[in-house]
């Protein structure tokens, strides 16, 4: 059973009879277009090869009429069955789809069978109406959440993007001041679920931001938090959010990890060039110079 997501997005949720939900990104007409063009090139290449072979054979054997018929048969087979055979053989993929990382699945998330594969490819002719403009298919795809063309609707299939999402673990905090500032956060402050998610999103993306941009972005949340915690207002906004992240995801997570972090930040731990500067200004409340940002 599929449910429509509240947001406008190209992902659909498929819930299996075992009550397991999968999220798929469905491939729309434009995502499929390069795969279609690639398959068209392969088909044309194969047809050209057959044309040369059959043409030569016809010239040598004086049976050019039969060879002409052979060419038409080859064209017919390639045009009507190329997609169907490959999608059956390669579990929902043609060479073009394989290269572009998309796959045909049944609407319930199961692999497609041979009949579905062949039927949906034969019905492409209908989707390309009127006269090759593909408007019928495009309108059909626009009208449904799964970007199904008429061939897909008839066969109960859809095309999904095979994207592997990388799960980034807990972010490492190289700056020793983060752990120290985390200790100053009031012990009774409870981080809500939404705040934890927001902090995780910020820490995950902050490495891509310039230092002024970090300050701009973190200011929104850090300013009220500074007031709430009673910290000096010139505390680095970025540092505060990192400290709160550290408190939420590292310090409170397990004693072992905390001990490891403390060992690494002790005065006796081997120092790296990057944390020498950080340890030199160990006071977490100090004002960070403009070039290093807040």
């Amino acid at each position, binding site marked *: 059973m599929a449910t429509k*997501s509240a*947001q*406008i997005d190209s992902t659909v949720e498929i819930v299996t009879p075992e009550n397991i939900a999968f999220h798929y990104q469905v491939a729309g007409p434009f995502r499929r277009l390069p795969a279609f063009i690639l398959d068209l090139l392969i088909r044309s290449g194969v047809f050209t090869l057959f044309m040369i072979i059959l043409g030569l054979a016809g010239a040598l054997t004086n049976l050019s009429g039969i060879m002409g018929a052979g060419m038409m048969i080859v064209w017919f087979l390639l045009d009507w069955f190329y997609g169907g055979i490959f999608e059956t053989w390669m579990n929902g993929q043609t060479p073009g789809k394989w290269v572009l990382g998309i796959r045909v699945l049944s609407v319930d998330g199961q692999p497609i069978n041979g009949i579905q594969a062949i039927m949906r490819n034969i019905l492409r002719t209908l989707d390309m109406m009127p006269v090759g403009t*593909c408007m019928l298919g495009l309108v059909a795809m626009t009208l449904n959440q799964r970007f199904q063309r008429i061939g897909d609707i008839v066969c109960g299939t859809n095309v999904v993007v095979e994207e592997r999402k990388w799960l980034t673990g807990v972010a490492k905090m190289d700056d020793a001041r983060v752990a120290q500032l985390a200790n100053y956060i009031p012990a009774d402050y409870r981080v809500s679920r939404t705040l934890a998610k*927001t902090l995780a999103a*910020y820490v995950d993306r902050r490495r891509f931001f310039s230092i002024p941009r970090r300050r701009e972005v973190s200011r929104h949340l850090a300013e009220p938090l500074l007031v709430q915690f009673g910290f000096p207002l010139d505390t680095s906004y970025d540092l505060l959010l990192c400290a709160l992240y550290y408190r939420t995801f590292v310090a409170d997570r397990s004693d072992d990890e905390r001990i490891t972090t403390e060992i690494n930040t002790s005065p006796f731990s081997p120092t790296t060039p990057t944390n020498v500067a950080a340890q030199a200004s160990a006071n977490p409340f100090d004002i960070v110079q403009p070039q290093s940002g807040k």
Partner: protein
Amino acid sequence: MQLDSTRISIRERNLLDTFDLALHVLREYFKPLLITFFVAVIPLMVINDLLIGWILDVEYRDTFFYLEEAGSIWRFWWDMTCLVFIEAPLASIFMTSFLGQAVFVAQPSYRDVFRDVGRMWGRVVWCQLLVRGILPACLVFLLVDRYDEFNPTVEILLLGSLTLVIAFVRSIRPFNNEIVLLERNPLTSRNPSAITIGKRSKDLHGPSGGDLFARWLATAILGMLLTVCVFGTFLFCSGVFLNDWQPGPTMLRYVYPLAMWVVAGYLAVVRFLSYLDLRIRHEGWEVELRLRAEAARQAAKLI
């Protein structure tokens, strides 16, 4: 308005995903997008017809492609293509304002959309009509005398050069409408630290000029293909229902511009989604929205 629960999912996408998502957005907001787009397009269609419609006012024979008539056909096709291309961003002002609201509000009102555009009207006139060459393009056609012979210097060289310059500017600075209508930066300011439209445009577009140009090129190719497909469909319908299979003067004069406008409307949605994508990639806009929403929640808790 809760900033982190947007109606359109805010995340990084590639160009083809953006094109696909635009179809979903079109389906979801079909009626308001149609209304907001055609409110701006209909006056432009009338102006264009007044400027160049007379080119097709010649006697046509049974077969459309007579040699002496082919000149008028190609002339009209070229002029109309340039005009629609130049005017497309102006045509999408109400649509852009609507989409900007639709990201955060479930059902934006037309009154708010028109009021917002009205407030920014001076900046729109300056940025689109003057800087982006719509008024100069219209003035080019005022130089053309319909009773004189075809003058290639004006219609090919002058109009072509203008279109090329505008195309180049739009390829590297595509999100002018969004900056003017949604970010609402001032046109000029005496305060040197104020973020004016020009400064903002430079900051937003500058770091990804090459990427934006490649995207614009791909969008232009897809736009041309879509125009051919839409016009082909209209031609097919005309053949089936009116038994007229030739692209006659009526088809060319009214249906060809309509096909281009339909595609321009769709590409305006794509452009808006690309703007969101650029802000996500370069500015971490989705993170900023979440932080602002969380700050609002924290403030509410304290109250």
